């Protein structure tokens, strides 16, 4: 692992030869998902920690550790507190990150199926293991779904705080997973647990963006933005959209930082990000002006400017400020108002740089993302919230709870919480599969694609090199270890290679030599 560095916006200061993607808008995406474990219907008491160990027994017997990397380039491990965790391999496109994340779900299901069969031999024939892809248990513990974005080093941490954080907080109106708690229903699973904005702390308090600086790349060129405020999504649309829209916003921030100009997002800087996050989470209308900004005048004048521009610039196919957005005089703003301003600035930027921005995503259409984003904002703005229930997790869940309450007015708060948890139970949950089966939840990825991703990493990042190395080691029986940037063999051949450039999927001579030595050892 690269040594931890201070997270300033300066690298070592050494002149380096930049990697070829440094000057483009290309991005590396990654998702780290922590899963929660519980057991029901056992004949005798059973500790979830013990169950998590049972799940990882096959991993332990293969790797002699519960922390391993797989053929598809991902990392599978048992985290502190017996959290099964899966970190996707590096992806250049949000759709690849989604497929890799779904492969992680599938791997977890296999581990649970094995463990459940074992458990039933000792704890009764009905013993059932539940694996939750969510972020909150029933006792007030929270755990994360962390997003990683490779960002150019010249983007400063204050820029992340003032220009990105308001977006991350407010995007949850279409990416939030929804939560039933003692206060009722909230848009996000995490808002009440996050106390800091941008900080390096992880234990004393939880920040929304962690500045722990492990770029897993050349630290003079890149930082790894570690976003921890997001929810775990079941919706495939929400997973792609959270990564893709964040990427587009980061493109604008990078361009402004590079050229030493304002991005325009400064107008959205929140005066208290965690208070804004909590206020957003409880405003199911998304309309109420619940967020205080550092400079409301700047925000209102930016709104006015874009509103005026859009009246004279209607020919543009996709840059059109929403006429229905009434510009208010309130001292505070709504999540929707902030999102519309982000959307407009991004749309205007893409109009100027269409080719370059499209080139940053090998597969996903940035214009389609822009349209989907706008469609979601318009639906929320126009009161058509239900129309998003096939793609937005919190809306799907909220609709089900409302409809069930109508059907059964005696529906208790515990039953509502059961519906909430069942939605995230990837092993024995029934609600999400039922929504998909009845075509009330969109899916974007075929089962075949997920099946392939169990053993196949993204082909256009260094994950391809790691995947080939692991496949080769498993086939030849060579003892190996690896992490995100290093590959090492010990018995019978000693060798190692660094894979420090996440965009390099071909490998250098050192890597080729390592693979060659492993193949020779087989003979």
């Amino acid at each position, binding site marked *: 692992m690269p040594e931890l560095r201070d997270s300033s916006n300066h690298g070592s200061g050494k002149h380096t030869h930049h990697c070829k993607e440094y000057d483009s808008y290309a991005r590396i995406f990654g998702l780290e998902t922590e899963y929660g474990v519980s057991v029901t219907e056992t004949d005798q008491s059973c500790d979830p920690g013990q169950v998590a160990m049972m799940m990882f027994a096959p991993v332990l017997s293969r790797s002699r550790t519960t922390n391993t990397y797989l053929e598809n380039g991902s990392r599978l491990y048992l*985290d502190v507190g017996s959290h099964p965790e899966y970190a996707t391999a590096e992806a250049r496109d949000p759709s690849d990150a989604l497929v890799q994340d779904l492969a992680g779900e599938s791997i977890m299901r296999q581990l649970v199926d094995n463990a459940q069969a074992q458990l039933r031999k000792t704890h009764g024939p009905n013993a059932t293991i539940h694996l939750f892809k969510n972020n909150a248990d029933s*006792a007030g513990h929270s755990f994360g779904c962390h997003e990683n974005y490779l960002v150019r080093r010249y983007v400063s941490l204050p820029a992340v705080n003032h220009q990105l954080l308001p977006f991350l907080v407010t995007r949850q109106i279409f990416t939030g997973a929804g939560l039933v708690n003692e206060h009722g229903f909230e848009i996000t699973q995490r808002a009440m647990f996050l106390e800091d904005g941008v900080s390096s702390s992880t234990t004393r308090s939880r920040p929304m963006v962690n500045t722990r600086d492990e770029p897993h790349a050349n630290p003079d060129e890149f930082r790894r933005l570690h976003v921890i405020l997001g929810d775990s999504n079941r919706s495939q649309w929400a997973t792609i959209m959270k990564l893709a829209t964040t990427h587009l916003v980061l493109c604008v921030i990078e361009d402004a930082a590079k050229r030493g100009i304002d991005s325009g997002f400064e107008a959205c800087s929140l005066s208290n990000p965690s208070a804004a996050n909590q206020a957003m989470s409880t405003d199911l209308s998304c309309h109420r002006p619940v967020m205080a900004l550092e400079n409301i005048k700047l925000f209102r004048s930016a709104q006015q400017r874009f509103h005026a521009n859009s009246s004279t610039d209607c020919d543009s196919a996709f840059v059109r400020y929403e006429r229905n957005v009434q510009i208010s005089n309130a001292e505070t703003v709504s999540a929707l108002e902030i999102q519309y301003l982000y959307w407009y600035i991004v749309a205007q930027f893409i109009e100027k740089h269409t080719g370059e921005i499209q080139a940053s995503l090998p597969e996903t*259409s940035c214009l*389609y993302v822009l349209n989907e984003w706008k469609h979601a904002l318009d639906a929320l703005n126009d009161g058509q919230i239900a129309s998003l229930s096939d793609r937005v997790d919190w809306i799907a869940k909220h609709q089900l709870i409302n409809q069930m309450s109508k059907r059964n007015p005696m529906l208790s708060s515990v039953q509502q919480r059961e519906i909430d948890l069942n939605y995230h139970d990837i092993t024995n949950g*029934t609600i999400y599969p039922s929504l998909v089966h009845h075509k*009330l939840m*969109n899916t*974007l*990825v075929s089962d075949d694609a997920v099946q392939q991703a169990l053993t196949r990493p993204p082909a256009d990042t260094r994950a391809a090199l790691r995947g080939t190395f692991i496949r080769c080691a498993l086939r030849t029986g060579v003892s190996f270890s690896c992490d995100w940037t290093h590959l090492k063999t010990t018995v019978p051949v000693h060798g190692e290679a660094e894979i420090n450039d996440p965009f390099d999927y071909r490998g250098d001579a050192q890597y080729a030599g390592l693979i060659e030595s492993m193949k020779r050892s087989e003979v």
Partner: protein
Amino acid sequence: MPQQFAQSQHQNSDTSENQKQQCSEKMTSLRHQQDALDAVLDDISSTLETDAEEYVSSFVQKGGE
């Protein structure tokens, strides 16, 4: 690659013919949607027959992040 997000699909065309067709499709789809929602609610009703208290209270997770 999710086809909906693939690069060949950019803009939705918005001609009036398309709008009419979309409107009629929408009506049919709304009816289907209500039937589908009822079916999902039936599934939820069966789920709720299990012990909700045990299901919820047994999920206690420590640590993480």
